[in-house]
């Protein structure tokens, strides 16, 4: 393991973007589908809910559509994209010596505050991503590239929401 060697620098953002565009195009060209992340998380969660409380899943229409009766919530393309994202992230991190336990945060807050923020922010993100029927990957990136009106409106809303609040949270990040 390269755990302790110096991590390599990140690649140029335009180069990363071009690679991202090629991956996205490859996905559309071969499968007709784009990318996704929150949908896969959603289905993994539904699997747990279906194991713990199957009657509850059967009574909640939103969950039922993914796990009703014998349906396996993991039986969906987006689950495999999500699993792949984890594997790909790990492989690239390992290759570049960037796998190391750490907490990235602004200099003025403690680790614990950062973890709490991450959890709270994640909760908003997860809720909003389901509300908007897709996250930054599945809506903004994929829908944006194929010119969906809703995806573009969504994308501006994400940036708008974040910029609107950024000033008030500046102490946490700077």
């Amino acid at each position, binding site marked *: 393991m390269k755990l302790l060697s110096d991590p390599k620098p990140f690649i140029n953002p335009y180069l*990363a973007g071009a690679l991202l565009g090629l991956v996205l195009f490859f996905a559309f060209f071969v499968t007709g589908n784009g990318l996704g992340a929150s949908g896969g998380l959603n289905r993994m969660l539904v699997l747990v809910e279906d194991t713990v409380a199957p009657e509850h899943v059967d009574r909640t229409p939103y969950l039922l559509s993914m796990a009703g009766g014998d349906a396996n919530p993991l039986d969906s393309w987006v689950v495999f994209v999500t699993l792949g994202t984890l*594997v790909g992230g790990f492989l690239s991190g390992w290759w570049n010596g960037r796998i190391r336990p750490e907490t990235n945060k602004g200099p003025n807050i403690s680790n614990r505050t950062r973890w709490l923020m*991450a959890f709270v922010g994640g909760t908003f993100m997860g809720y909003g991503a389901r509300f908007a029927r897709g996250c930054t990957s599945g809506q903004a990136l994929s829908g944006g590239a194929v*010119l969906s009106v809703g995806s*573009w409106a969504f994308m501006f809303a994400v940036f708008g*929401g974040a910029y609107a609040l950024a000033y008030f949270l500046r102490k946490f990040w700077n």
Partner: protein
Amino acid sequence: MAPFPIEELFGQAGAYLIYLLIGILFGAVLEMAGFAKSTKLAAQFYFKDLTVLKVMFTGIIVAMVLVFLTSGLGWLDYSRVWVNHTYLWPGIVGGLIMGVGFIIGGFCPGTSLVALATLKIDGVFFALGALFGIFLFGESVASFDQFYNSSFYGRFTLPDWLGVSTGVVVLAVTLMALFMFWGGEHLERIFGGKELHREPKFRYAGAGVMVALALAVLVIGQPTIMDKWEQIAAEKEPRLTNREVQIHPGEMLDLMNNDQLNLVMLDVRDEVDYNLFHIVDAKFTPLDSIPTLIDDLHGEPSNTVIVLMSNDEVNATTAWKMLVAENVLNVYLLEGGINYWLDIFGHGGHENCLTEPVINTEGDEELRHVFNSARGANDPAAEPDPHDIDVEYTPKVEIKVQQSTTGGCG
């Protein structure tokens, strides 16, 4: 033509393997861009490091240009590419909530996965939070179901909305992205203290290539519905010449009385003939309106059978080619058209058939039967009673179910 029916070609397991590979490439690119690092993502919102903007919009314009270039060249069928359906207001509200989550938590769902995979502890907490948020959504969505399903526009694209060609939008989005990069770099200089002259020169070449490709998309254009037909004509034309899709009036009458089916009848004649007489429940859809119906027809349930009709067969055949070119399934046309239908079932104007029924495949699309008033669907022949009539025919309708491209964050 792409996209490929990967489940048919490689089986379910093979298809999932392809999705896994796509995910791996996606995760690797996110990691290489530095998206496992929350401080780098959050810096976007303080104008210090606009990596998020650059990666995201470069990704969008590269994929966009390639999608519409290959579509223009006839290699990719855009109608089978998943375009996220527009639910305008739920999307905007969800987006705002996500924006709040982004600045508080420092990740989005995809990037938190990569952070988790590289052992970033804040990424672990974020991913747990995201799961909790998704859980809360599943539990609460029933209470605002109506809003969640509101302002639905289906497959609605920027060219549809703006009323301009796809090429113009592709070029405009490309130029907008380049303008944002230019502005973004200046913001990085001001707020992040970056020295622009030390940025790599290849980005100018890249910008030039993107503009050139976007111009190529504009010049090549997108295939018209009849171009698409030409591409598949060799494969599909035999179905017309072998008369596999022209259904006998008797079969259509049975379809009309079959509760198991969702029968969609489209009458492509002009308004005068439609008002004189039409079959009950047949929709008035003149030929030039057919392209606007495609999305609705794609949204019909899988037990749908579509039957097209004109006075003879010529115009219905043209409409059939359009729908088949757009991958609408289970499309048939009424054999001999309305003229043959009236030959067989008669009508209020003259109860008994005056002549032997005639199938005029190359007919001039004139209504041969005389109506002295506009009867519309108020004519006995508009809805013949199947019990009174016994006609023999060879059934031709077979229902095929499409392997659907469902996408979004599924």
